[in-house]
């Protein structure tokens, strides 16, 4: 287990190193100089040069890369070109919307997918299974931002149960904020739950064909008892992997949903930074998202190996 963990840790570090290089390189080749962009076209050359020095743009590329990475490691994500505030602070503020949204959506997705998947597997080939599988096909085909717009149309504009967008802030009350995140979370969760339900179903069906399930039936358990006591626990392993992957997807997928609901999260931060060519913010937010995705995958790998010893010997 220790050997396996160290190996995964090494690949985590390599992934992060390469990811940071790629992101840095992409931002580097971006056309336009941030300093001249900030000062406008009429700026004096020496003013631009002074600002370039202040922003650290006069250093060589390798120096800047090292400065960026070491800064991030110590929690310093640089200073926003446009707002002149620390990027770390901006990210921390927005994180309190994006992160709860992702967790909320993941919870909903799991709550929908588990019963649906278990039900479909237990009714294999019958009407209920066909209905659930048909619904998941539809769920996968629906773009979540369009689904979000439809939810707004029905529940905010016609029924007036929710507001169409915006976020009151956690200090205005927990339930009020949760309510503002409800439609965004549903629209993120539903397409994901369709995928998760399919994985749950096929994983359960695989387990139901195993010898130990027949043994469980042979010792006198009913189908239902065998499913709950022995089937479910074993079927959960691949499902947990998908849940881990989905968390990172929800964190990143929230970027577009935040646009639909005008939520001031990481997604809006990225798009504002892009239109203002505030590249240091784009760079750091993207790196942070990539980091969380790679980290979650790493943790899932470890959890997976902890419950299933067979995996430790592989790779």
């Amino acid at each position, binding site marked *: 287990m220790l050997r396996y963990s160290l190996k995964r840790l090494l*690949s985590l570090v*390599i*992934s992060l190193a*390469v*990811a940071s290089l790629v*992101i840095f390189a*992409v*931002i580097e*080749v*971006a056309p336009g100089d941030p300093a001249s962009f900030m000062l406008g076209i009429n700026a004096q050359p020496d003013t631009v040069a002074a600002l370039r020095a202040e922003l650290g743009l006069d250093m060589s590329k390798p120096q800047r890369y090292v400065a960026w990475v070491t800064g991030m490691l110590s929690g310093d994500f640089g200073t926003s070109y446009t707002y002149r505030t620390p990027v770390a602070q901006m990210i921390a503020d927005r994180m309190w919307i994006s992160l709860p949204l992702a967790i909320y959506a993941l919870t909903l997705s799991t709550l929908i997918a588990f019963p649906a998947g278990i039900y479909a597997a237990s009714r294999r080939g019958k009407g209920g299974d*066909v209905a659930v599988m048909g619904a998941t*096909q*539809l769920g*996968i*085909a*629906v*773009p979540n*931002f*369009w689904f979000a*717009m*439809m939810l*707004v*149309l029905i529940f905010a*504009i016609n029924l007036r149960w929710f507001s169409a967008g915006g976020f009151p802030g956690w200090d205005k009350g927990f339930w009020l904020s949760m309510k503002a995140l409800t439609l965004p979370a549903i629209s993120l969760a539903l397409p994901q739950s369709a995928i998760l339900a399919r994985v749950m179903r096929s994983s359960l069906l695989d387990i139901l064909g195993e010898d130990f399930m027949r043994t469980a039936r042979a010792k006198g358990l009913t189908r239902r008892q065998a499913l709950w006591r022995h089937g479910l626990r074993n079927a959960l392993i691949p499902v947990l992997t998908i849940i881990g992957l989905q968390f*990172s*997807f929800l*964190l*990143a*997928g929230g*970027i*577009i949903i935040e*646009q*639909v609901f005008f939520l001031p999260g990481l997604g809006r931060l*990225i*798009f504002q930074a*892009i239109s203002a060519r505030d*590249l240091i913010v*784009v760079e750091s937010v*993207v790196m942070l*998202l*990539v980091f969380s*995705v*790679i980290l979650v*995958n790493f943790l899932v790998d470890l959890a997976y190996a902890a419950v299933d010893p067979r995996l430790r010997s592989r790779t």
Partner: protein
Amino acid sequence: MRSRSLILGAVLCVVVVATALISFIWTPYDITQMDIPNKLQTPSLTHPFGTDHFGRDILSMIMIGARTSLAVALVAVGIGMGLGVPLGLWAAARKGGWTDEIIMRGNDLVFAFPALVIAILITAVFGAGATNAIIAIGIFNIPVFARITRGAALSLWEREFILAARVSGKGAARISLEHILPNVMNLLIVQGTIQFSLGILAEAGLSYVGLGAQPPVPSWGRMLADSQTMVSFAPHLALVPGLAIVISVLGLNLLGDGLRDYLDPRIRVART
């Protein structure tokens, strides 16, 4: 049940592709012409899907938008297959060697990236537009095809007919091309339809946030973005492009599922 999904999927795909192709020679209205007096009309006989805020015919825009969606997704799949399949074949032929290791680690790395975030980064930095959207989506198709090709090719390399080919003096490259590739083709076609549908969704997402095809080229994603402020009094503007996306993606997914069962003889035997 299975052959039904194949037929339904094929029908939906034919409808979408036909719509896109017809738009090259005919659309009900000219979408470059504004018709302000007839703006925001609800669906009627003259305008089956209504008109937008410039009085343009929604049906015509949907038809031309289908071109954008299909073209972007198709070329992105082409990039993924064109680079991914040779990489996968190469990795399988050099199984366990350092080329295999490098190719597969590179794949893992691309997989680890949140595709949407990187697509946004690429289009934001290099400029919004269909070409950059294609590249951004295409890059993430490469590891998908590389992995699936390698996986299938590895088991083929163990088979007798490959051994026979090696004994007859064929090199790894020739065996990959003449014996491995034809045998993984079915798998690639199925995966191709799935990636095609994901490409349509990704293109719609990028266009929605303004990073896809630029005006005046119509795209379903941007039609949705434009409709957002008008959804309270003109819901058909949001409904129609969304349904167009759903139908295309659903059609491709059903076609992929159906093809998988149709092309995989083992499942057919098991069913009968």
